[in-house]
């Protein structure tokens, strides 16, 4: 009697809400495609290359968005909760927004460490891993290395291999399909890379300045030399003193090209370019940065064409 009274008086509201929650049957999906969510568009592009029509892929971040600062909107939860596979860049690139999304997705398949959680950095060659003490005096450093590793076609291939293996593991019946897609992708990428390398060969060793440290893998693969940054430290906005130093350095070394990601303000790069008779180049670090960059190949096509043009114009 006493217990009944207690329940009536103090838990009525909670129970009615719990009832609402309980009667909502879980949504089931009819199609049999593997539902893949990726943190960035580049990983989505690679997953599409391998998965073909056996997968449904969507990226959380857009290609023209700074992947460090994505808002953890609840609308992403609707997609994450049905995902079979979540592919992340890792190396703490998404630390500011992805962990709460994963937790709130209530999807056991994509929790960290679960079979549907795929950290692409494990398959890639990582550069700029800090050694010794790591402090934020160096700015927003990534203790596990530079997370912009997808901008090296070799890493693209390595990640694609990892994705092919993962998809085959998830759908053994389609393993041959994924293996065949991977082989085709590898051949196409090798051919494309030969062309890209040939296009970049005349500019081997050219010194450039970039806004953020987004390009070490790209520069290493294509033989460019990134010698300065518009940001004084990663994640720290440009300061007048650093900008003056950068202008001095560019003048001394005859550097003319400043590469800027599409999500950074062009005011400081433009000012630097004016002082050094250089050229500001908005390079795309991700698929979808411009409408025409619809896949992983077009990303390099676009960036290499832009770089070539800039180098030719600033001889």
């Amino acid at each position, binding site marked *: 009697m006493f217990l009944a009274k207690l329940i009536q008086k103090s838990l009525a509201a*909670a129970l009615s809400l719990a009832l609402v929650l309980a009667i*909502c049957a879980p949504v089931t999906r009819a199609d049999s495609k593997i539902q893949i969510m990726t943190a960035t568009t580049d990983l989505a592009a690679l997953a599409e290359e391998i998965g073909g029509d056996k997968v449904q892929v969507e990226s959380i971040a857009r290609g023209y968005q700074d992947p460090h*600062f994505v808002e953890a*909107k609840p609308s992403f939860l609707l997609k994450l909760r049905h995902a079979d596979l979540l592919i992340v860049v890792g190396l703490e690139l998404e630390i500011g927004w992805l962990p709460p999304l994963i937790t*709130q997705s209530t999807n056991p398949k994509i929790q960290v460490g679960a079979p549907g959680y795929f950290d692409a950095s*494990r398959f890639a060659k990582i550069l700029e891993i800090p050694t010794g003490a790591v402090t934020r005096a160096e700015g927003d450093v990534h203790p596990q290395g530079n997370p912009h590793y997808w901008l090296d076609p070799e890493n693209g291939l390595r990640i694609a291999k*990892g994705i092919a293996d993962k998809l085959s593991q998830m759908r053994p019946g389609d393993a041959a399909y994924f293996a065949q897609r991977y082989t085709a992708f590898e051949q196409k990428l*090798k051919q494309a890379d030969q062309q890209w390398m040939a296009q970049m060969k005349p500019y081997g060793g050219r010194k450039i300045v970039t806004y953020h440290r987004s390009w070490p893998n790209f520069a290493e693969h294509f033989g460019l030399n990134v010698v300065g940054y518009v940001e004084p430290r990663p994640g720290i906005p440009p300061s007048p003193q650093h900008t003056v130093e950068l202008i001095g350095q560019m003048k001394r070394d005859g550097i003319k090209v400043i590469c800027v990601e599409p999500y950074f303000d062009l005011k400081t790069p433009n000012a630097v370019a004016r002082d050094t008779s250089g050229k500001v180049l908005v390079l795309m670090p991700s698929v979808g940065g411009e409408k025409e960059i619809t896949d992983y190949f077009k990303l390099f096509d676009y960036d290499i064409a832009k770089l070539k043009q800039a180098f030719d114009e600033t001889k």
Partner: protein
Amino acid sequence: MKRFALSFILLSISTLPALAQEPPAAKPAAVTSDARIQSLEEQVRVLVEQVSQLRAEVRTLRDTKGPDSAGENKVVLASSRIEAGMLPSAPEPAPQPIVALAATPAPAQVAQTQTYGGATSNAKLLNPDISMIGDFIGTAGRNTVSPGKALELHESEVGMQAIIDPYARADVFISFGEEGVNVEEGYLTFTSLPAGLLMKVGKMRAEFGKVNTIHNHALAYIDRPLVTNNLIGGEDGIDDAGISLTRFLPAPKNWFAEGTAQVYRGDSSDVFSSNRRQDVSVVGHLRAYRDLTESTNIDLGVSYARGHNNAGINTTFDPENFTTNLYGADATLRWKPLRRAIYKSFLFRTELFWSNRDQLSPLNVFQTQHAFGLYSSAEYRLNRRWTLGGRFDRSGHATNANLTDTGFSGILTYWPSEFSQIRTQYRYGHLWDDKTLRYTDANEILFQFLFVMGAHGAHPF
């Protein structure tokens, strides 16, 4: 290379017993036998040396960070070998054919085992993410109703966050203030429950509106709105030990809906007071969200909370009859252009609260006070380093709905980096003074320094 080395070791080790077990009786002559044994011993010695060398090599390879799992596959683009010196990785002898690559088993999903300082540092990899947030506040000006200290390290919040096991994670936030230590939150979140349920168990800020869920350092202002202080328990708000269940709810297309039901012990600041074990409090929250465009979204919510209060204690009335019912409604409009997310953004938020508090009137008659309060605030990011905001406050008192405090604030925030903030806030209040029994004006300037150490987990949207 790693795989090759390992298989060589295994091969070598497996041959050792076979060599050792060669039956000497099978030899026809003793001389031949001795010579043979000698030669075998020599071979064993050489093999042992090779094994130890390879072991060392394997250890070195393990400690070196490369494309760890994929490194075995050695997928190197043909073109990479065109230009010597431009190769990110030296071409290995005879890259494996594609068919063989496809057949290799997928690498196990294990955490990266990078080391930074020798073998012992591996243990650190299992430590939780630890962070500390310092919140230093200074106040100047006139406020006779709720005067703040001239200078104080208002709060030092230590956060420890980790994944516990494949089924749960835990978040603990301990707040060291001027008046002592307080576990602000400490809860376990079960992430792998069936039926899309998310369960939290522990002490936590209740899902009652928006501002109640936000930690001090994550607020857009130095202080909390007047209505929080007057109706919802002050700085700590509804923050109690309990159990929470959250689930997505069916919603029209492009809408996101979520329901939360929580049961707490019933002790939250001066809002709820549990006199007996069965005096638990409950909180319910419904949330609807929609992206209007890729940059703009709207977030709506309604909340309910019910618990016992302390009005009946030490009276002739039964304390069980004195409850507080709280109702809330919140609306948030956000704008943040994706291409310039770090430079420009705008947020408008308003929250309305109604409090129905059972209590005794001055004439000792049972009554219910129906108080109402609200705040509306807007923040605009001017550029990467500066944010400007304003807030309007109005709220009755929970114990006397006829007394209404009004105020407004303006705030300017400077961000040296994303790990620190410097702020100044002007605050005006037209407040009821219980001591003088009349309204009084408060004019204050507050400033604040906020800093983050370590890896502080992201806050929910």
